[in-house]
């Protein structure tokens, strides 16, 4: 087994807000290996996006406070200088975002935005850069790339824009690609195209991907491993097959239960678990999911935070006092 490309250890992110300190990410740890696809799943407000923004050093501190350890190729990132961060961003680690309409600069051409990281990190400029931009557009299946390269973002369709975002992230052959809700703003068909695209590119380039999403349908098609996040913590982590076959956390069960049956129409957001996610400024004591959990015992669950514990000899771990399918 190769060394992990990315190691996250007890990452915590707190925000100072008008109403108090928001505990957004509360101690998550994971590893990412070369070529692996890790999916982090959770509702809005679970802290999943903030978690990866912290990986890239994109959170302004203050008002955020990031603690813990993030090691990229063995090197600790969290105490890096701004200059060191800039060398890694876009080159070693790249990130693509949810809404390609607002995430792309409307007054710069597609080609300009594509060639920017190349010029910055690889020193490729001018015609050579433009040529590479055209190649990249071609690689993601955009028709007539040589004319598209001079177009502005609003002249492309949503799916094409997202492809541009993807290939912009890949322009410098990063080791790690972080996709933050990259398919959420797209329709189902385009979603499928994009996930296939990333998987294909991954195989070709050997890149590791962290996929942030709230959509379990997407996860099933692309991930190797899945971490389920809630209230700033990991509730369950497993290989994708294990998670779908034998989920052991009540929250995961709820998420899977809201997946549509084959034959019905497009996957919904997670609306079938009653209640609301916890308020980061006023995190409940004990398990963050306890208030909404139908299996909560009302005592231990609301007092003691469950640790992630591995079941048996697999690497399937759950943070629950009463994991499903396991005798208490």
């Amino acid at each position, binding site marked *: 087994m190769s060394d992990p490309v990315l190691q996250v250890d007890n990452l915590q992110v707190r925000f100072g807000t008008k109403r108090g300190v928001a505990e957004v990410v509360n101690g998550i740890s994971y590893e990412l290996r070369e070529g692996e696809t890790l999916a982090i799943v959770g509702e809005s407000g679970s802290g999943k996006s903030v978690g990866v923004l912290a990986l890239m050093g994109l959170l302004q501190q203050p008002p955020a406070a990031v603690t813990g350890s993030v090691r990229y190729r063995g090197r600790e990132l969290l105490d890096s200088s701004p200059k060191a961060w800039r060398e890694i961003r876009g080159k070693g680690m790249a990130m693509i975002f949810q809404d390609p309409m607002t995430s792309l*600069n409307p007054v710069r051409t597609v080609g300009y935005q594509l060639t920017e990281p190349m010029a910055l990190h690889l020193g490729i400029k001018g015609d050579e850069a433009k040529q590479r931009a055209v190649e990249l557009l071609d690689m993601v299946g955009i028709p007539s790339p040589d004319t598209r390269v001079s177009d502005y973002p609003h002249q492309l369709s949503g799916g094409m824009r997202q492809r541009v975002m993807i290939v912009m992230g890949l322009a410098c052959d990063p080791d790690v690609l972080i996709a933050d809700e990259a398919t959420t703003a797209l329709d189902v068909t385009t979603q499928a195209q994009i996930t296939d695209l990333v998987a294909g590119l991954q195989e070709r380039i050997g890149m590791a991907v962290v996929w942030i999403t709230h959509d379990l349908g997407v996860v099933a098609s692309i991930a190797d491993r899945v971490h389920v996040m809630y209230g700033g913590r990991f509730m369950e982590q497993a290989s994708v097959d294990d998670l779908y076959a034998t989920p052991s956390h009540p929250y995961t069960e709820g998420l899977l239960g809201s997946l549509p049956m084959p034959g019905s129409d497009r996957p919904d957001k997670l609306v079938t678990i009653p209640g609301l996610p916890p308020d980061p400024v006023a995190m409940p004591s004990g398990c963050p999911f306890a208030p909404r959990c139908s299996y909560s015992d009302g005592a231990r669950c609301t007092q003691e935070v469950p640790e992630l514990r591995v079941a048996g000899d697999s690497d399937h771990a759950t943070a629950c006092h009463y994991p499903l399918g396991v005798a208490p």
Partner: protein
Amino acid sequence: MSGFLLRRILQMVLALLGVSIVVFALMHLVPGDPVRVALGTRFDQELYDALRERVGLDKPLIEQYFSWLGGALTGDLGVSFRNGQPVTTLIMERLPATITLAFAALAIALIVALPAGIISAVRSGSPLDYGVSAASQVGISMPDFWAGVMYILLFALTLSWLPSSGFTPFGDGVVEWARHLILPALTIGLISGSIITRFVRSAVLEALNQDYVLTARAKGLSEWQIVRRHVLPNSWIPIVTVVGLQLGFLLGGVVVVEVIFAWPGLGRLALVAVKDRDFTVLQGAVLYIAFMFLAINLVVDIIYARLDPRVRVS
């Protein structure tokens, strides 16, 4: 784009038409008989009637309006009651002084406002930002005539560095031209600059909060690279808008400063015309000023289209 342009020109023409009606109506509501005032002590009934007929005041209002409008379209704005000179000539005489002051003030304003606005937005929340905000607050609250009077007090009367009034044309010597220009331009320029600073700051701040800035950061660009390449190109539109508005204002709305510095501009021409009941001059001057203002707005809209590729396509 030409469809867009055509519509804007049509709008401008309509507005100008409206302006001409308003101006004409206003002037003819002015109490006081201009012909009588012009004749003054030499009043004589026959002369009075003849003069009225000559000027066309005996014709119905509508006819007067159209003949005035027709004349205006060919560059003939009538004749001054005070001294018989063609109004157009009087306006043209004043134009160099007006334009000089307007552009000098705008130049000062931009030199101050652009760096101040951008830096205070990028370093938002810092002491520098608060300093700029405070200074611009004072700047926009300051009456321009008071500022002018203060500058005269300081630079002309106390220090005797600069003259306190008057306009010297460029052709008569650059140094004198500059010396007379500095104080009035500074007076209006700093105030105008304060207004523009606030808009620059808010435009840049707004752009900095956009998602594409996060994308640019994720690509590894430095803050100043991001400001230069991504933030500024998106900030120009609101900035151009306010600069255009300011320029329009500078061309006709600085009457008071013109009075203080005895600057022979269009605003003063209009003011004197009000006091003299010289309504052809007033009509012409106000119409001309409104025309310049609308023309500038049109130019601003055209620049929009150049700056924002999204507008171009529509």
